């Protein structure tokens, strides 16, 4: 069985929060779209919150021959669960192909509803072992995206032994944390005039002196992206150099993180990967095309990383081409 499960055809998934991104992005490189923002319910036009938007969005994607998934809140409190139940019903009645689930309570509510809407476990579901994936499978999960810390080798074990598909983050910011309060607001959500516009702008956190800290420990400077109720990696996860190996291990489902990125980022990164997958799947010699490197670099403000996949620090980069073998760029 291939590592990604029973399906052997390649699937490139993109995350899109709202109708604005759905219309401004070239979706042609993608096979599936995951609709909605898992970090914050208040994001403008959030498909996971403004449920009236779902039927049209799902129908549009289906008409274009694409799968439509809908995400759910990563850390819903008890008072959020009524909305979660409405979300599940709305996603099912809109004909969504799966619900992305990060929280075990949400998974349980989905199972209790007994509707034929499969679950895809998201990045915050903390899937680290095949045994956990099996428990989630018993609740209706057919796909898991292991936690960012899980290496490619460990993911292959999960895919082999859990009987679920495994999704691999191919490119984009790594989700590193979720917070209860919005860091970009001073007042309460809903009262602060900066909500919901503050997270439409870019905010970066930087710390440490690169030269100094590198000399001391090799860890390099810290750059993160703060999106209000989520912390993302400052660097872009990038596996383009490693596609032949990843495909040879059987992985077939890949995600490009499109949240909090530009339309050009989503459109052009997807196009690069679509071409790269075609070349890597062709069986011929695989080498990065210079134009791919130029496009990815253009959209990468703080360099690339992929360290978790190889058992190291998340921010480090394993590779020889894109950063000249320099893991600290």
């Amino acid at each position, binding site marked *: 069985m291939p590592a990604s499960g029973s399906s052997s055809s390649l699937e490139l998934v993109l995350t899109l929060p709202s109708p604005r991104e759905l219309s401004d992005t070239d979706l042609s490189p993608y096979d599936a779209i995951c609709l909605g923002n898992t970090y914050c319910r208040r994001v403008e036009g959030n498909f996971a919150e403004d449920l009236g938007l779902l039927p049209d969005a799902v129908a549009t994607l289906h008409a274009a021959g694409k799968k439509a998934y809908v995400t759910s809140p990563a850390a819903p409190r008890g008072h959020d669960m009524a909305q979660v139940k409405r979300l599940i019903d709305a996603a099912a009645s809109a004909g969504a192909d799966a619900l992305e689930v990060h929280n075990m309570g949400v998974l349980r509510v989905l199972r209790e509803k007994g509707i034929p809407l499969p679950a895809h476990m998201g990045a915050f579901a903390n899937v680290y*072992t095949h045994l956990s994936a099996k428990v989630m499978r018993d609740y209706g999960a057919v796909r898991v995206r292991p936690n960012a810390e899980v290496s490619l080798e460990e993911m292959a074990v999960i895919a082999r032994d859990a009987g679920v598909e495994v999704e691999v983050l191919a490119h984009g910011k790594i989700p590193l944390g979720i917070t209860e*309060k919005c860091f970009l607001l001073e007042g309460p959500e809903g009262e602060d005039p900066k909500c919901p516009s503050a997270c439409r702008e870019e905010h970066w956190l930087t710390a*440490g002196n690169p030269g100094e800290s590198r000399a001391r420990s090799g860890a390099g400077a810290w750059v993160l992206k703060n999106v209000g109720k989520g912390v993302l990696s400052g660097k872009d996860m990038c596996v383009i150099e490693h596609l032949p190996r990843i495909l040879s291990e059987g992985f077939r489902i890949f995600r490009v993180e499109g949240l909090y990125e530009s339309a050009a980022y989503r459109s052009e990164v997807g196009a690069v990967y679509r071409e790269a997958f075609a070349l890597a799947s062709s069986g011929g010699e695989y080498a990065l095309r210079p134009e791919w490197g130029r496009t990815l670099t253009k959209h990468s403000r703080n360099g690339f990383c992929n360290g978790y996949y190889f058992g190291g620090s*998340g921010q480090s980069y394993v590779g020889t081409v894109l950063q000249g073998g320099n893991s600290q760029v």
Partner: protein
Amino acid sequence: MAELLASGGTVEMARVVLDNGADAVYVGAKGWSRRRAQYEMDDEEVIASARYAQSLGKILRVAFNTLPSSGEVPLLLAKAERFVGEGIRDFILTDVGAMRALAERFPGVQIHASIGCTIVNAEDARFYKEAGATQVVTECRMDREEMRKIRQEVGVGVEVLVHATTCYTYLGRCTMSSYTRQEWRFDEEGKNHFLGSPNRGGLCYRVCLTEWDQRGEDGSVEAGRVVLPNLAYFLVDDIPGLIDLGVTTIKIQGREYSVPLVGNMVRFYRDLIDSYLRDRSSFRMEAWKERMAGIVSARDAERREKTASLISESGLSAQH
């Protein structure tokens, strides 16, 4: 009556907290808990501490609450088998697959779903109950109504941390530390200690507590020397309410603190709880707050020193 659970970072600390009034002590099996190895115990130390607890009619609970590799679960079950053979019946776990495996292998053991499970709603608690948990640690900011639902409607034990840290992120769902620095290090039993990952190996570099700049799209500094909110707390005011609510366990974290400080903390909470239970109607918190001030001050001093050391180890600059 609510159980007072305290930390046993060393054999000495385990003994001191039990002697100072804890009903139960939790210890980390080496490589398997949410602290680095120096605050964990090898098997012989766990067993010796368990015997001491048993001799007092008290409980020792073993933390296996890291998120392991699939291939490491047999190591966990083998270690648990040895402990069960020594009369240990109480465990703390995070990985829901390992939890179910342990519950099936050793029927009747008590399993606490760890703080790393990030249980934020009652349905979460139901899920972990179905996986074998007999008690759940509630997320640090959970409100009383949700705790009540878990206790009464879900029907599992509720464990509340009254002295801990409110991380900037949801604890158990954060990989900021390992993003900054992580190394795979295997011990002689073959367990990877995943150094730098609090979820997997216990060591957190607390990189959130470094001093950083917030920059906008053009790179200009929007706010300088900003600190992400991450506070250590004492929920002393909440204790009477938590007892009235019927919480099962009141937990004090602190394996990385000094033994005298942890001993003082345990004695303080023991006396406070006993005083409240003796006469709820005339209980007054003011005097306890005065006594607590000294403990808070000592705790904060130790924490500051520890945080600076961890951030420095991560390669980042600590706060000035």
